[in-house]
C-alpha cells in the first residue's frame, strides 16, 4: 500500500455542465483520450496489462478528473452528480477498453452499502479513501458450503469486551491479496434465523487472525482467494447497519447497484466487436470470412445484442431518473450481457483461429485478447448471481410466478 496522500478536489474535474449531455460526454471523452495510456487500451496492438499499482494510480486520477464517485455526495469525496453523468462517463470509459477497476467492490458495493446504511462516522472514515484509492476493499460473502445461498453462512462474529471476534472461512474473495479491508458477512445470531441473524462488518485484513490463500483460476491467474479468519478482530463500531438486520438493508441497496454498476460494459463490448472487425478487415484471409453468410448472421446478431444491452441499461437509468422502480433491470442486464458476451468471444475465437500463419502482430494481439476473454467469460455467467439465479429472480420477483412446492 502506498502512502501517497495527494488528493484531488472535485472542482479540478471536468465541468459537468448543465443538462447538456453531449457536452459532458465530449469533455469526458477528451480527458480520457488525452490521459489513458494507449498501451493500456485492450484493442491496441502493443497492449500491456498495467500493474496493480499503475491501475491504482490511474483510478485515483479518474476520480480527480471527476470520472469516478460521480453520484456520491461531495462531503464524502464524491462529485454529487446524477446517474445520467455516471452513465455517460462509464460509457466513455468502456469505449476505450481501459483497465478494469482494482477496487470495483468498494466502488460498486461496499461504498453504496455504507452510503445507504452506514453511520456518519463510517461514511467519513471510509468513502473518500475508496475514491482516492488509499484503501482497497474485498467482499467476504461466499463460503465453501454457501455460494449463492447466503442463508447457510457459518462464519461467526462474537461480541466481547474489545469488540468483535471473527471465526470462519470465506471463498471466492476477489482481490483479497491486494485489499486493506473486507466487508464481511457473518452470523451474529442463531443459524436457524437464516438471513435474520447476519451482520455486515468492516474487517481490517492486515492482521494476524487473517490468512489469505490464492485460488488459481482457469485463466491461469489468481484473482480470487480463500480467506481464513481465526480470531480476527473488529473494533466495537465495526458493524455496518443494525446487528442481525444489516443484510436485509444491504440487499435493497445492492438491487439498485446491480442495475447501475458497470455501465461501461456495453461500450467495452462494442470496443471488442469493433476490434475484431478491424483485425478481420486488415487480414486478407479473415476478410473473406466477413463475406460469409454464416459469419455475417452471427456478427449482425452480436451487433443487435450490444444494442439491446444498451437499451436495457439506458431504460434502467431513465426509470430511476423519472423516479420509477428498478424492476428486473439488474437481472436483465446481467443475464443478457453475460450470455451475449460468451457467444461473441466464441465467435471471435472461431474467426481468428482461421488466420494464416505466421499471424500478423495485429492478429496475434487480437488472439491474445480474445483467448483471454473467452476463458474469463466462463465466469461471467457464474459470478454476481449465476444465470440460473438471475432466471429465478426474473421468475420470482419480476413475473411473480407463484412459488408452491
Amino acid at each position: 500500500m502506498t502512502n501517497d496522500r495527494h488528493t484531488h478536489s472535485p472542482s479540478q474535474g471536468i465541468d459537468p455542465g448543465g443538462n447538456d449531455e453531449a457536452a459532458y460526454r465530449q469533455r469526458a471523452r477528451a480527458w480520457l483520450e488525452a490521459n489513458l495510456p494507449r498501451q493500456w487500451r485492450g484493442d491496441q496492438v502493443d497492449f500491456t496489462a498495467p500493474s496493480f499499482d499503475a491501475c491504482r494510480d490511474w483510478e485515483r486520477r479518474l476520480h480527480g478528473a471527476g470520472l469516478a464517485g460521480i453520484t456520491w455526495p461531495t462531503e464524502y469525496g464524491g462529485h454529487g452528480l446524477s446517474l445520467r453523468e455516471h452513465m455517460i462517463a462509464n460509457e466513455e470509459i468502456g469505449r476505450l477498453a481501459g483497465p478494469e477497476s482494482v477496487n470495483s467492490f468498494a466502488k460498486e458495493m461496499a461504498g453504496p452499502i455504507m452510503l445507504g446504511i452506514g453511520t456518519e462516522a463510517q461514511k467519513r472514515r471510509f468513502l473518500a479513501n475508496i475514491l482516492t484509492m488509499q484503501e482497497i476493499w474485498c467482499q467476504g460473502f461466499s463460503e465453501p458450503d454457501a455460494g449463492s445461498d447466503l442463508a447457510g453462512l457459518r462464519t461467526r462474529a462474537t461480541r466481547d469486551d474489545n469488540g468483535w471476534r471473527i471465526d470462519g472461512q470465506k471463498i471466492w474473495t476477489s482481490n483479497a491479496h491486494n485489499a486493506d479491508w473486507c466487508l464481511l458477512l457473518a452470523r451474529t445470531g442463531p443459524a436457524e434465523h437464516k438471513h435474520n441473524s447476519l451482520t455486515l462488518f468492516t474487517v481490517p485484513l492486515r492482521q494476524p487472525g487473517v490468512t489469505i490463500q490464492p485460488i488459481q483460476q482457469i485463466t491461469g491467474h489468481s484473482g480470487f482467494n480463500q480467506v481464513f479468519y481465526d480470531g480476527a478482530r473488529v473494533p466495537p463500531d465495526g458493524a455496518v447497519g443494525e446487528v442481525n438486520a444489516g443484510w436485509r438493508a444491504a440487499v435493497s441497496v445492492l438491487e439498485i447497484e446491480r442495475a447501475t454498476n458497470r455501465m461501461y460494459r456495453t461500450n467495452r463490448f462494442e470496443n471488442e466487436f469493433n476490434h475484431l472487425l478491424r483485425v478481420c478487415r486488415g487480414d486478407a484471409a479473415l476478410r473473406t470470412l466477413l463475406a460469409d453468410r454464416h459469419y455475417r448472421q452471427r456478427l449482425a446478431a452480436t451487433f443487435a445484442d450490444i444494442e439491446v444491452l444498451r437499451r436495457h441499461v439506458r431504460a434502467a437509468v431513465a426509470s430511476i431518473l423519472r423516479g420509477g422502480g428498478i424492476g428486473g433491470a439488474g437481472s436483465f442486464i446481467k443475464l443478457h450481457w453475460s450470455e451475449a458476451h460468451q457467444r461473441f468471444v466464441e465467435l471471435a475465437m472461431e474467426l481468428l483461429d482461421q488466420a494464416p500463419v505466421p499471424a500478423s502482430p495485429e492478429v496475434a494481439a487480437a488472439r491474445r485478447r480474445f483467448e483471454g476473454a473467452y476463458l474469463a467469460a466462463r465466469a461471467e455467467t457464474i459470478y454476481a448471481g449465476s444465470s440460473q439465479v438471475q432466471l429465478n429472480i426474473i421468475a420470482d420477483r419480476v413475473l411473480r410466478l407463484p412459488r408452491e412446492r
Partner: protein
Amino acid sequence: MEDLAPNEERTAFATAARRAMETCPRADGAAAARHLAETGLLGMLAHEEVGGLGLGLADALPVAEAAGATLLPFPLVEILLAAAELHRILPDAALALVGGEAVASIGWRGRLSAEDTASGWRVTGSLGRVPMAEQARWLIAPVCLPGQETVAGIAVVDLLQARPEAVPDEGLDLERPAATLSFGAPVAAEIHLDNGGAWGRIAAHGALLRAADMLGSAEASFTAASEHVSTRRQFGRLLVANQVLRHMLARDHLALVGARHSLAHAAMQTDAAAPDAETARLVACAVAAEACVHAAENAIQLHGGMGFTWDLPLHRRLRRIRAATALFDAVAARAALAEQVLGQA
C-alpha cells in the same frame, strides 16, 4: 435522455384504441373501419389536413401492439401508412381512410411496372401478400419505370376500377387473409415518382408496426402461458413449481423486453430522422422477429396438448406472427443489418 417507456398520453391513446379493437366487428371490413375510425386511430399518422392526428411512429407502436394482442382482423398497419402517405397524392382517399369510409391495402411483395401513355399512367404486373385485398378499395404498391429495376415511386390503384385477378395466398394468418393480385392488362393508376422515397418510408415504417403487432400477439400468448402453468396442477403440484418452466418463461420475458425496448428506440429514432434510424429499425426487427416467434411457440409448448387445439387462440397468434415474419424475418433483418455494419458481402 431518451426514455423508452410510453408516456401517459401514449398509454391512454393505446388503451382507448385497444378498447375499440376489442369491440370491433370481426367479419366485415367496412364495418370495422367505421368502428375504428370513431376513436380517430385510423388517422393517427395522417396529416391534419385530411383529418389525421399527425402523430409519430412512437405513438403508433402501442396501437399496433394492441391490434396484435386482440387479433384484430383488419389491415390496420396498411391503413395507418396509406392515410399518412396519400394526403398529398390523393387527399380524398386519405380523407376516406381516416374517416373509416374506405379500406386500403399494400402490395408488400413484388412491384408494378408503370408506363406513361397518351391516356395517362398505366400499370401492369403482380403483387403478393396483399392483406385483405378483397375488402380494399385502394391499393398502394411500389412501381418501376420501363427498363429500370429500382423503385421509382408508388402507384395508387383504385381496385373498384382496376379489378385485378385475385388468388388467395397460402398464408398462415387467419384474421388477415392475403391474396396475390395480377394486373394482366394495363390499368389506370395514380403515380407518385420520388426516387422511391415514399415506398422506402412505407416499407420501413411497415416493418416496425408489423413488429409491434407481433409483440402484442406474443405478449398475449406469453401471458396466457404464464397463467396456465400458474393454475394447472400436475403430479400434485402447480406446473409452475417446476423450475424448468419458470426459467423458460423468464427467458421469453427477457427477450420480449429486449424487443420492446428496441422497437421503442427505433420508432423514436425514426420520428427524429436520426442518422442511425435505419440501423435501429433493423436491430428491432431482427430482435422482435426472433423473440416473438419463440415466445408464441413456447406458449403452445407450455399449454401441452391443449396448446395444439384449434379452440385456444395460441395458434392464431403464432400464425399471425409467422405471417408477419414471412415478409421480413430475423434472418433477413440480420442480413440487412450486416450490410449496414459490415458493408456489402
